């Protein structure tokens, strides 16, 4: 594993970093027992394994319990507005492709209000590692149905059960062209850290949907539920086979955990953008003088 990968500019790249180096001084605000603690833990470990200097990382999120995560990491952070983690991330990456960008959010943030942006970030194949803490509920607003809630799920807004069929995040990611698609579980922190590390090292849009239970408001999709309902991918599974990945992603009862798909051969959006920049840069003044000539 290339620890120094994205880290060439960092003066302290050769220092072995500890998990503590990635902890911020802000203490998590989550309820006791929240699945997001496990995710945060996995993040710390993945970051340590990758070893990037915190100053060269930006953690981006929207709004939600899960979206608070950037505050708890010692890197730069951008806790934006509900549903908009992807556009903000896109702006950051286009403006500065040297940044290691990790994005965080909830199922509501990413797939309800944020669904449109998800679609376009995936098809652009931006080099972003996006970790969704999927608890099948809106946590921060205290328990309403989310896009990944089951049909018939009873919440405050759906006292007779939800009328919407759930959205399958992995199918969406695959259909829209994400080049790394994985599923993790907050109850398996070690495996999760590995999925995140691979996602960060993947050159392109890496989506990791993580079952991260909300014990406070979701009494159905609990740790126990996912321990029973989620299994590892079968032996010999070929993560480069797109149609197989679609089949694996569409499976539930039980769900698969692991890397369902990876394609390292597609150019990123940043590559395409970089290709439009001429080798010989001009100053604004040169550009303007050229234009004045054109309009005279």
């Amino acid at each position, binding site marked *: 594993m290339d620890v120094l990968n994205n880290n060439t*500019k960092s*003066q302290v790249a050769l220092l072995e970093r500890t998990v*503590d180096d990635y*902890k*911020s*001084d*802000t*203490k998590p*605000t989550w309820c006791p027992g929240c699945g997001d603690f496990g995710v945060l833990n996995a993040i710390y470990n993945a970051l340590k394994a990758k070893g990037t*200097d*915190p*100053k*060269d*990382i*930006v*953690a*981006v999120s929207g709004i939600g319990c899960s979206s608070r995560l*950037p*505050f708890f990491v*010692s*890197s*730069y*952070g*951008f*806790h*934006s*507005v509900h549903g*908009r983690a*992807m*556009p*903000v*991330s*896109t*702006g*950051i*990456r*286009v*403006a*500065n492709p*040297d*940044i290691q960008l990790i994005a965080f959010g909830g199922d509501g943030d990413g797939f309800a209000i944020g669904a*449109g*942006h998800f679609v*376009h970030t995936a098809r652009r194949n931006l080099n972003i590692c996006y970790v969704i803490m999927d608890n099948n509920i809106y946590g921060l607003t205290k328990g309403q149905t989310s896009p990944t809630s089951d049909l018939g799920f009873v919440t405050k807004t759906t006292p007779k059960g939800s009328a919407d069929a759930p959205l399958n995040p992995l199918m969406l990611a695959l259909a829209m062209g994400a080049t790394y698609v994985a599923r993790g579980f907050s109850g398996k922190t070690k495996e999760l850290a590995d999925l995140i590390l691979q996602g960060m090292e993947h050159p392109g849009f890496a989506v990791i949907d993580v079952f991260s239970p909300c014990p406070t408001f979701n009494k159905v999709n609990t740790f126990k539920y996912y321990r029973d309902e989620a299994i590892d991918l079968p032996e010999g599974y070929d993560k480069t086979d797109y149609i197989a990945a679609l089949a694996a992603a569409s499976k539930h009862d039980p769900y698969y955990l692991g890397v369902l798909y990876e394609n390292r051969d597609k150019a990123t959006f940043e590559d395409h*953008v970089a290709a*439009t*920049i*001429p080798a010989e*840069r*001009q*100053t*604004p*003044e*040169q*550009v*303007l003088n050229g*234009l*004045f000539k054109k*309009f*005279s």
Partner: protein
Amino acid sequence: MVAMAERPTMTEEQTLEQRHSIVIRMGGESGEGVKSTGELFAQVAARAGFKVLTFQTYPAEIKGGHSVYQVRLSSEDLYTEGAALDILLAFNQEGYDKSYEELHDDGLLLYDDGAVTDFHYEQGGKRALALPMTKIAKGELKFELGKNVVAVGMLAALFGMDVEPINRLLTEKFLRKGEDVVAKNKQAFQLGFRYIEESFPERANYYLKAGAVEEDSIIISGNQLLSMGCIAGGCTHLFGYPITPASDIMEFLAGELPKVGGAVVQAEDEIASMGMVLGASYTGKRAMTSTSGPGLSLMVEMLGLSGMAEIPAVIVDVQRTGPSTGMPTKQEQGDLNMAVYAGHGEFPRIVLAPTDVADCFWRAIDAFNFAERYQVPVILLSDTTLSVRTQSIHKPDLSKIKLIPRVLYDPTASANATLDQHTLSTPVAQHGNGTLPENDGEGDEVDMELAASRGFELYQRYAVTEDGVSPMSIPGQAGGQYTSSGLEHNEFSRPRYDVINHTRMTDKRHRKLIGAAQNAPEPFRAGDPAAELGIITWGSATGVAYEALLEAQKQGVKLDLIAPRMIWPIPTQQLDDFIASKRVIIIPEVNFSGQFANLLNTHYRKDFVRLNVYGGAPLKSSLLLAKIMEYVNH
């Protein structure tokens, strides 16, 4: 009403030369060459030494529909597209039908021979002349598409234009298409030119004195010059979504920004555009978006994030006729309220409005400077009229550009170090470091030990400073880490919910407006400061007001005019004396409710005379002149 009809009519002896300017309108089917004829003629005239100002309308439909291109010529500076027509060039029957009534009583109708057959309007003193444009193109020239150039040749001859510089222009213009094309076009021009010389002896009556041919003259539209202003303002990144009439800013910059190492990205919608702008700006880049009303309506939440998280952003809003989808190709100054007020809660923002085409350049630079200097969103309000109007102007003097940098975090600076002095504001007195407060339960809990063990945690992203601006760190800078957020926060960018903090931070953020107002760009000023009758206006209505003022002065009226280029915060130091010293102040605007007048009334207790038009067309100076006359000695 004193309308333009009272303008002295041309006598037999009087040539057009003696007029201040003449207005030529071309009208015909959209896509039939009206626009290309108009554009070429405007260029030709500019090369021949005329000042040129154009106006066009086009249907909202893609193809077909009636289209108008109007060119006004003068040896002196121009401010509007003019009112009644001196010459109407009809490409088809509709070209006659739709505009003949606007032709002066002593005007000249030109039409493509055979294309207009039903002359149903009363002719009065108007003259008419059939021009064999199509005939010449099809016949002698054997190149039907050359019709437009033939027409331009005819007009050039009519005004007695100097052929030399025009030939050079044609060469430059068509060279990349090959020598043949150059020759063909020159021939077309000549055929047209010769036709008038030979068959229209009265042509001398239409001669208009050209100005000196100016080396530094360019002919350019508002959107083009605004785009160039963005480049001049240091912009490297534009994120946008197509929308009439703003799309061509994005399209223009798509070709140019990569040259300076930047990029234009077409986002999936306007919310995404603004999100990307904030992301890019957060990394230290000068970033912008361009849109029109519907797009700005969608950006409102992001605008608040920009204000709260204190991330610079430039939003160009080319206003069109609203509400909703409205009339996408028509004129209105209807987004001022939204620019100034939209957003839940309150945050500082700056609204600028260019007053004419040339001003688009300088206000775009200002927009970036204000955004960077104050870490706020800046909305630049252009409009349809300014965006599509082309005008001959002097090349902007690039040596006059001053770029004001963002105030960056420098951990080595001492607490009372004076940062770079610049024109916009008072110096910032803090470097942005401080001591974390103890936990008190009104915000996220802090691990004080961990905090103490790390120098960089002491960075105060939102240091409370005198001018409200806090030094900003940029990802990659060691020790500058912080989490930007739209949640209320303390200096250290940690979420906080207590009364004292929110009050203090609200004050800090709004203090930026004090500095911004003090550094407002100079307003457009004209007229007599001692006059007791005044006009206040803004944006593209300024040219109209200026023209009305010139006309009023001719009629002996003492009048004063001011058009602030900063709309919000209100540049009170520019307006206080003006408003205090006038007996009557008229505020003309192209909107229903008098948005600028209302805004001024939140600060000034004066009863303004409001003049509002809201039909989708620019204000007419004759209408304003009539209003002025109502208040003379009254």
